[in-house]
């Protein structure tokens, strides 16, 4: 498995009336071929901004990708590409599905035509062949009567079908990378399960690398190979799926895992909840951004940001509890919190 995408020291800010909001504060990560990388975190942690930066969809102004950031796609820096190159990249090499399928489809254009559009642009087919290809794509994403459905408009589709249509558009040109930004948040659980299964099947078939952005750790467990947890513009823990679920080390990751009620848990027990809200990124704290909400916070946590500690080849965490002088804290997950 080779690296297909390398993000290096990515910094993104938004310039607002109140000042500069530092949405992403220097994150680095890789994506390998054929793998699913989950990016998990609360609203405002910078996960969607990261995704948009990869597609160069940050509007400037007010947004700004800072000097020194690099996003290498097969070794080539996306941030230095000219418009012509970018057009080939977007939708052709890297494509994206959005959270809300209703607002991201064109309501005045037939579904088939919306899929055919990108096929015509990137694969150079004529309108008729592209439309036939679009019908085939709808079949691939399990939409029944696809030839009839291709001639319908988005409002005639249900929420789950619209999301399938979005996936069809995204995969129509065999992209190397698919970025899925909260693809199932607006959907019911049964439909969510269908969509996740579909994405997994398509990955097996087409070998696409997937970046899955979500705040729901539940759906991540079944599909992701690796997980990175983001908090206020930083990656605070990353590792293989098993490592994050079996041996999480950051108190924030513990909180995320614990606040999901499990079906085997006792009723009406007090759920573990993270108190407070994430810090204001207009004035990000100098220390660890989670310190204010962390029950294990020490004096040092408010003073300086911890370095990333490597726990294994794949698992690392940024937390002062890893320091040899820090007190040994047991994860509340193993202490019976989730049982």
């Amino acid at each position, binding site marked *: 498995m080779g690296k297909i995408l390398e993000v290096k020291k990515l910094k993104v800010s938004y310039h607002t009336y109140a000042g500069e909001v530092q949405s992403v504060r220097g994150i680095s990560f890789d994506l390998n071929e054929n793998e699913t990388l989950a990016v998990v975190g609360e609203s405002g942690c910078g996960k969607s901004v990261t995704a948009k930066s990869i597609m160069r969809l940050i509007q400037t102004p007010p947004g700004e990708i800072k000097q020194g950031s690099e996003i290498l796609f097969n070794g080539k820096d996306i941030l230095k590409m000219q418009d012509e190159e970018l057009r080939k990249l977007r939708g052709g090499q890297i494509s994206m599905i959005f959270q809300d399928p209703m607002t991201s489809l064109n309501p005045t254009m037939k579904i088939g035509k919306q899929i055919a559009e990108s096929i015509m642009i990137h694969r150079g087919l004529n309108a008729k062949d592209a439309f036939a290809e679009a019908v085939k794509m709808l079949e691939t994403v399990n939409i029944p009567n696809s030839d009839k459905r291709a001639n319908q408009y988005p409002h005639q589709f249900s929420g789950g079908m619209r999301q399938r249509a979005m996936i069809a558009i995204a995969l129509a040109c065999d992209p190397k990378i698919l970025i899925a930004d909260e693809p199932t948040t607006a959907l019911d*659980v049964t439909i969510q399960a269908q969509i996740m*299964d579909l994405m997994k099947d398509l990955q097996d078939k087409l070998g696409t690398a997937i970046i899955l952005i979500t705040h729901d750790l539940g759906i991540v467990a*079944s599909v992701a190979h690796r997980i990175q947890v983001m908090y206020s513009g930083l990656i605070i823990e990353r590792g293989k799926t098993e490592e994050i679920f079996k041996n999480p080390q950051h108190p924030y990751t513990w909180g995320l895992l614990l606040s999901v009620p499990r079906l085997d848990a006792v*009723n009406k027990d007090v759920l573990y909840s993270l108190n407070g809200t994430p810090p204001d990124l207009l004035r990000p704290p100098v220390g660890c951004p989670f310190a204010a909400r962390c029950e294990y916070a020490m004096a040092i946590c408010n003073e300086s940001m911890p370095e990333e500690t490597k726990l294994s080849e794949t698992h690392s965490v940024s937390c002062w509890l890893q320091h040899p002088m820090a007190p040994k804290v047991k994860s509340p997950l193993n202490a019976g919190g989730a049982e």
Partner: protein
Amino acid sequence: MPEDNSKDVLIEVKNLKKYFNVGAGAVLKAVDDVSFVIRKGETLGLVGESGCGKTTCGRTVLGLYGATDGHVIYEGVDIQGLKGKAKKDFTKKAQIIFQDPYASLNPRMTVGDIIAEGIDIHGMYRGAARTKKIYEMLDHVGLNREHASRFPHEFSGGQRQRIGIARALAIEPEFIVCDEPISALDVSIQAQIVNLLIKLQKEMGLTYLFIAHDLSMVKHISDRVGVMYLGNMMEFASSHDLYEKPLHPYTQALLSAIPVPDPEIEKNRERIKLEGEVPSPINPKPGCRFSARCKYAKPICFQERPQFKEVEKQHFVSCHLF
């Protein structure tokens, strides 16, 4: 249904129907013959996919929609016939918390006025007593007193939902319909709100009708749970029984679709896959509403609607398999 002999019944819903005319002679049967009881001090969960009629059901129980047929009996009085002062008295006992904390607060009113709106309508407190009540409510839901003079846009989603809860509680109701109160919130904030609702229930002896599509959260908060599908009640049982031993094929599929935050369990898990999607509730076909997606469907399922019957003690199912 469900004869419930226990004396502590607060609300009895009997054969409730709510139809909407959607033009051209078509009828959308949002709630179609649903019966259940809500006991004093309990949390009754109502789950189902979007479009199953759970919100309509909750609103009809509150009298926000007039029922097409059937009865909602609140402490022995049918709320359908209420008018004037009697109706106003009922609205003081029953309140609602809405799903979308962004759309359900008036952006031009201060938080204090939002919370006190019910107090003003019912003429409960004035002047200093009113202010005192507002502060008390803010304390209850974990907000600061200074927040009373601010406007909704200054708050985050979780804080707004707390304001919505304070507003519902300000007039000291007995019964609250929680209509998807956490769906619009982040996972970590969801836990905060659910903890708050449970705490308030214990302190004030409230009764909840908790509507949600998140089954794990419903299991956590509810004493009993009803599963709805296309306007029908498919299964109704204590939350323990329902999750331990789901009887209806739809409930089984719904439970199996919930992702478990554990990669090892997920790897070895056999999911019951539901094919297709929820059919349209407009002019529904006869027979069991779930028959088109049910893998156990027999000929009778397409012709006759199954009865809602007690299969085990306090465990009701509407399915021809039983």
